[in-house]
């Protein structure tokens, strides 16, 4: 594995009233993703510590506020502590990833690596020079980009592609960070994740995450949205039927989703035929053009796409 990715979702949920068992489910699902480490807050840890030990092939980090807390919660692979000594430009700050206390040596926690947080206003190509300079001085530096200008995922991915070893993200970008799921998929598509069967568990994580936050993730959200593989435009349906790779950047099932043809104003003949087949409906080929016109009319009339039920009604009417 080229990169060491840390998911910090469990550090960003203190504001939600989540049941211990739900948090534990989330932890177990996150631990199945191709990540190396999972970070959590003390509050979350106190809720789920009775379920320890956690899955063993991952590292666990705890976010702390002082050295005493490191002593109080032993056993973690690392502790994240704000570095008050370093003043940085812009909206960024530095955290330290520290090893725990070592009983034998008696000396305090040692530094594993530094984490640079923020930098959300780094834009486009400006980020390149900045990252190159940083990585030259500190090859082990971790980046946890902020999302103040909507570019956190891009920053995290480019940092890794430039050779950065450590990056920190959160599921769906909660807390204004890079999105774990987007970073994983992007690195995979760029060939930086080795062999990966799929990321289908992302859909389960979405369910648990929505339960905790009480908010629905947008149906259009990259990687996670329920309808990102819904397609209506005739030209796209036609292309997908010829070769899905023409209009799908990766197979829907890779992220636990399904393709779905939606009927509407922009449907074409091929789309109608594909939909009839998808729904297992027999329909006379001669009447397809007529049905297409009805579908388009109905869609314009209701100013939206048709539901499967509405399409079914039109099919039945046309066959009368």
């Amino acid at each position, binding site marked *: 594995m080229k990169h060491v990715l840390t998911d910090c979702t469990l550090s960003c949920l203190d504001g939600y009233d989540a049941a211990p068992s739900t948090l534990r489910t989330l932890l177990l699902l996150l631990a199945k993703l191709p990540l190396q480490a999972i970070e959590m807050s003390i509050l979350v840890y106190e809720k789920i510590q009775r379920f320890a030990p956690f899955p063993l092939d991952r590292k666990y980090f705890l976010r702390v506020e002082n050295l005493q807390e490191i002593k109080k919660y032993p056993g973690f692979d690392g502790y994240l502590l704000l570095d008050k000594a370093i003043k940085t430009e812009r909206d960024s700050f530095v955290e330290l990833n520290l090893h725990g206390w070592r009983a034998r040596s008696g000396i305090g926690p040692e530094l594993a690596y530094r984490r640079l947080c923020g930098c959300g206003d780094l834009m486009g190509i400006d980020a390149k020079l900045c990252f190159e300079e940083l990585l030259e001085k500190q090859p082990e530096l971790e980046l946890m980009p902020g999302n103040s200008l909507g570019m956190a995922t891009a920053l995290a991915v480019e940092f890794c592609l430039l050779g950065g070893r450590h990056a920190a993200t959160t599921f769906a970008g909660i807390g204004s960070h890079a999105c774990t799921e987007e970073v994983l998929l992007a690195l995979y598509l760029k060939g930086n994740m080795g062999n990966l069967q799929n990321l289908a568990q992302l859909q389960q994580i979405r369910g648990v995450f929505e339960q905790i936050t009480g908010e629905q993730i947008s149906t259009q959200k990259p990687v996670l949205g329920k309808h990102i593989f819904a*397609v209506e435009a005739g030209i796209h349906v036609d292309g997908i039927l010829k070769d899905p790779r023409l209009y*799908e950047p990766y197979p829907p099932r890779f992220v636990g989703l399904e393709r779905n043809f939606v009927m509407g104003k922009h449907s074409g003949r091929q789309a109608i035929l594909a939909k009839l087949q998808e729904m297992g409906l027999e329909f006379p080929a001669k009447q397809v053009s007529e049905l297409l016109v009805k579908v388009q009319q109905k869609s314009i009339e209701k100013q939206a796409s048709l539901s499967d039920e509405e399409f079914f009604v039109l099919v039945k009417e046309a066959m009368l």
Partner: protein
Amino acid sequence: MMELRYIVDTTLRDGEQSPGFAFSGKEKTELAKILDQAGVYQIEGGIPAMGKAEKDALLAMKSVCQQAKISAWNRLSLKDLAESFDCEPDIIHISVPVSKRQIYEKLKKDETWLEQQMVRCVDLARSKGYTVTIGFEDASAASMEFMVRLAQKLKKMQAAYIRFADTLGILTPFAAYEKVKQLREDSGMELEFHAHNDLGMAVANSIAAAQAGALYVDVTLAGIGERTGNCSFEPFLQAGELLYDWQLDSIDAGKAVMDAAAILERKMLA
């Protein structure tokens, strides 16, 4: 003084094309009016080949817009163009698939056919006096050499600018920067950048493309569009305004745009 750049809004074409949306002519006209008042440079209004309702909507849009240029989207087809001529748009946009997979798998043609067909289409539209822009569909996966060749040809034919479409949303910002820069420098054509948000990088890629010299950037209200959508108007400007002058107008007009985006967001497929 910040450098001037131009917003192309494609809510009414790529945005509407995504499942869930089917604007009436009236809605299209109202949205076009809001975008026009906000100072958007170009409004991609629709696809005339779709039929009479779409054509009527384009004509209505043109009549209400004071400054925005209305463009009509076309496949690489003389028949499509004939439908567009009926709408007398300010700009005729012709989509030209440029990746091997698009040419061979979708069109079932080859590069020679594509080039000849492109020349025929551009010739026809230019002969009628139209400003023509070309969309390089799936440009991210296409050969740079091939795109440069087509672009040089288009320059000779006086096409106005070329849209670099990241059709599958697979670029990252540094790659977008390199590709746009090279295509622009090697061909001498001005470029427009069209992002999709599949990896959550539509805004970042569009900014990088602008930094590489793309004069025009495509956005949609609420980021609606195929799959995960296009580059979203408001987040894009939040970043873009720090770098360039997009020539957008008053705060009131901006507010109307955001209100319209909020309405579309609620209409998204639930």
